[in-house]
């Protein structure tokens, strides 16, 4: 731990949170998922259950908890991208921090945003539904999955932040990615054989599907062996994406051009 310079790492995380918690960012990070939960939850409730019960809301809640890992990932990518664009990347690296500390600072910030966002969504859902999971195992699996998912999407967005140098390109790619990742996953609806084959394949290769299915299993108290396999696949994908992100990050120029 000494090599990581823990107090410096904490300072970097604190700084990342400090400069990313303006009201505008918080509305996007927490407000958008909460609005999905409220509008989609109640809106589709009428279709899925004819107006009675909480079935769709109960289905959607773990999906929205999982959606937080994508939002958390965008925080990580945005921190790196903005730091390069506005000179803080070179400034911090000419300060008392190593590249590894800076990278860990971003990854851990993403993770904290993922966990914090999921906790807030859990609270919102509890208010809307009136109940929620209580078993420690369920919480352990949900938050463990969200940690791994946050690392995956944090690394993915970090990769994007390291590779893309244009403001327009970065925003466009990020919006497209978020759309694809969210809507080609089991966050909003289950994987069904009635879907076109191409979309089914997208669902199955999408890491958010694994996050959503595992969190949903834990939330509903119906964890199965398939959830363990999904977690293993997610962990393996995370290692690969993390490797690519670190490589791109270490090779990235200090300044935005």
């Amino acid at each position, binding site marked *: 731990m000494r090599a990581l*310079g823990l*107090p*410096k790492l904490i*300072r*970097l995380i*604190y*700084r990342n949170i*400090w*400069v*990313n918690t*303006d009201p505008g960012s918080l509305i996007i990070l927490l407000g958008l998922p909460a609005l999905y939960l409220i509008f989609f939850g109640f809106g589709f409730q009428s279709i899925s259950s004819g107006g009675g019960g909480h079935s769709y809301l109960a289905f959607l809640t773990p999906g929205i908890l999982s959606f937080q890992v994508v939002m958390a990932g965008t925080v990580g990518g945005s921190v790196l991208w*903005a730091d390069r664009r*506005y*000179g*803080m990347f*070179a*400034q*911090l*690296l*000419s*300060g*008392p*921090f*190593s590249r590894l500390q800076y990278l860990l600072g971003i990854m851990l910030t993403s993770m904290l945003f993922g966990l914090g966002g999921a906790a807030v969504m859990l609270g919102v859902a509890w208010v809307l539904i009136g109940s929620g999971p209580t078993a420690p195992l369920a919480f352990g699996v949900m938050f463990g999955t969200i940690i791994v998912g946050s690392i995956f999407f944090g690394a993915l967005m970090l990769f994007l932040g390291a590779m893309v140098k244009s403001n327009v390109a970065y925003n466009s790619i990020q919006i497209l990615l978020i759309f694809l990742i969210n809507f080609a996953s089991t966050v909003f609806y289950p994987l069904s054989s009635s879907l076109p084959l191409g979309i089914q394949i997208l669902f199955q290769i999408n890491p958010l599907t694994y996050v959503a299915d595992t969190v949903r299993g834990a939330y509903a108290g119906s964890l199965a062996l398939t959830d363990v396999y999904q977690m293993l696949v997610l962990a393996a994908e995370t290692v690969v994406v993390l490797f690519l992100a670190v490589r791109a990050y270490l090779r990235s120029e*200090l*300044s935005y051009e």
Partner: protein
Amino acid sequence: MASPDAVVLAQELRHSYDKKRFALDGVSFSVRRGEVFGLLGKNGAGKSTLIKAMTTLIQPTSGTLRVLGMDPAREGTRIRSRIGVVQQAESFDFTTVQGNLDVYGMLWGIPRSERTKRREALLTRFGLTEIRKRRAFDISGGQKRRVQVAKEFMHDMEILFLDEPTVGLDVIMRRTLLDSIREEVRRGLTVVFTTHNLEEADYLCDRVAVIDEGKILILDTVENLKRLYGGKKTIDITVGNAHAPAFFAELSRELGPNVTVTVSGPSAVLLTDDPKAALGKIAALSQSMDAQLEWLNVRKNTLEDVFLKSVGGGGEGAGAP
């Protein structure tokens, strides 16, 4: 031979970004503790590359570099924890002006009470009090530059590297910054400073190195550089008609090898230790060649003359060295 109190020592430093051209091409120098060391040069001369190497942001292709006695390639973090850097490019966080100072102080581990004290002093010193609550991305370029320089003084350091810190600053703020640096130097800070503003270098630096195309052309104290041509004076001449090229060629020949003549279009700069004799020859020649003198001025040598002389100054021709 390097001074024993050298805090920066560079020997035969070379760096290439593209393996074709050297941005640094065999640079050797040392910076002594407590001095202000200026790096003068045109745009693209290699000043920023040298700063990046000294601040551990790039690893030189070859040569030896020691900062505070340490090797930047192996002890980068230890070096960086003892230096301050003001980059040429802007750098700020997406928060208020005072937030930028606070965050930066926090990053350097300055305790909250000390941070507040330093922040308030710096906001006042750099004229930022009125805009303290404004977002840093929402202020003018000169104000951003002031924030960038001010926040570097939030932490303690042994060497401060400034890469063209006064770009975008008005005259008053430029002087405030230079005086702040002088004040810190009096307290023992060592400063390495790049600029192409020669007045600043003259005002601030103990020693300067003139760098061009990755090579150090001259390295000496400001006073020695100004004395480089003994008691020489500078004569500026502008000739207002088509006789200029022939006039300057003839003048250069008549003045002989002890007078430097740097020609640029209808104007020329003469460096001479006998301005009276030179003025006599200029007057006689202008009569005989019917050349109309539009401007004639005799003045003391400045650092700018030394700089122009050493990097060529874009002149078309010159007399003796």
